[in-house]
């Protein structure tokens, strides 16, 4: 097995796993489409990276930091639903990106390209994934409680504003990393689909969150292996694998 392929596979597995875990929280908070939207928010950063030849994840992360800060700020100022604010920021971002994204790079920006990834990008991606996972694991139950009843969480001393912010930062990191795998158009599925499949078959919270993590990993392994075998782009293959797992989960759905 060549080293380049191994890098691609490892990066996809780490990102897919954490994205699935994060997705279980996002679906619970009814923020499933936020991953999708943020994938689009990141487009100007991806476009810059593709033009100047650096890793799209880092471009995406920079733009996402700005985008998410704006959404967070708007929410505090306006009390409008976060999805409405995200909608405003993401469409504006797409508009900006398409002003300067070269036509030859459109496909890579939209559906990703994991075939070219070097050692350092791999290492940084793994470290970021591990840190994000540990942070999410720490805030997970607090976020679920706050989602169940915000007052109850506050009485328990949970600073919901702070945790929401940390949670958004985690989303930004995973979306930025995921864009490398699935591109900005398909990023949303990497967080939604594995978690939705896990939700169908799980009885409790730990089955749900770790189920999503495992399904995310399986989707990425199968998708990237298929890419190696049949040569079609990895991003769509990963997402289609996850979608098929979701369909299978329907047969095992708990009432």
């Amino acid at each position, binding site marked *: 097995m060549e080293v380049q392929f191994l890098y691609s596979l490892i990066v996809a597995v780490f990102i897919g796993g954490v994205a699935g875990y994060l997705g279980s929280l996002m679906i*619970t908070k009814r923020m499933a489409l936020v991953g999708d939207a943020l994938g689009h928010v990141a487009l100007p950063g991806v476009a810059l990276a593709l033009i100047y030849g650096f890793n799209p994840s880092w471009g995406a992360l920079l733009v996402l930091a700005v985008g998410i800060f704006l959404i967070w700020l708007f929410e505090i100022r306006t009390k409008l639903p976060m999805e409405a604010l995200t909608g405003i920021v993401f469409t504006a971002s797409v508009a900006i990106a398409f002003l300067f994204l070269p036509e030859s790079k459109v496909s890579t920006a939209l559906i990703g390209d994991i075939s070219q990834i070097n050692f350092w990008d791999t290492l940084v991606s793994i470290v970021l994934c591990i840190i994000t996972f540990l942070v999410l694991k720490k805030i997970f*139950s607090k976020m679920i409680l706050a989602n*169940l*009843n915000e007052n109850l969480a506050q*009485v*328990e001393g949970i600073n919901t504003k702070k945790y929401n912010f940390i949670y958004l930062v985690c989303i930004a990191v995973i979306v930025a990393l995921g864009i490398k795998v699935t591109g900005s158009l398909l990023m949303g599925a990497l967080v939604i689909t594995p978690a939705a499949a896990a*939700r169908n078959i799980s009885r*409790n919270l730990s089955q749900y969150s770790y189920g999503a993590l495992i399904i995310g990993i399986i989707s990425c392994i199968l998708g990237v292996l298929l890419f190696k075998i049949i040569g079609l782009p990895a991003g769509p293959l990963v997402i289609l694998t996850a979608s098929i797992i979701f369909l299978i989960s329907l047969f095992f759905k708990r009432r």
Partner: protein
Amino acid sequence: MANSLILKVKNLNVELDGEQVLEDLSFDLKKKEILVILGPNGAGKSVLLRTLLRLLPFEGKISWVPSSQHFKNIHIGYVPESFVVSKTLPLSVKEFFQFKPVSQKAILEALSWVGIKASKKFLEKRLGTLSSGQLRRTLIAWAMVDEPDVILLDEPMVGIDIHGRETIYDSLVKFWQKKNQTIILVSHEIGEVCKKADKILALNKRRLFYGKPEEIITPQNLAKIYGSAISL
């Protein structure tokens, strides 16, 4: 120290969306007392609880003794009025309790105090699949499980059948006394709850009456509180 103060409320004013909800409210509460807050719908009972929990902005003074400066030093449990769980949320009863650092033994004990014979099977149930009465009881048990100093309950018995209420109240009062807990309970029923209270606060934006149940619960006073004659 059993009779020392735990809560001092002075000249409390709460305004929400431009509307004055609580006006110049003052009262004290001693440790181990059970305070029942009565009043018609919209009297500001729930708002008062949430203000005491520092969930709403207010003017005036709320001092939780001994830690008036450090609200976080006093351990408070809370049973909110509305608590809805999505049927599809894969959260088991046990996991719900484990949001707090408690042992399985403590969980089972707390559940038994609210009249739920908890089995392993019950703990594995999804929270969203419980009946409204069971969910309510579970929520009360959740508030008590880590033995807070004070418990604030907002209409705790909503959805629990009449027969169940009295037994649960009996059981809860025993538990509270055993654990030296102070209780503030909002209710708009005047039956079984008030008999077990040490103090009654009748509220309609302002303080109407405050004192021992036998002094407050008279037909004349109730007519003033609820606007028409009510008898027990």
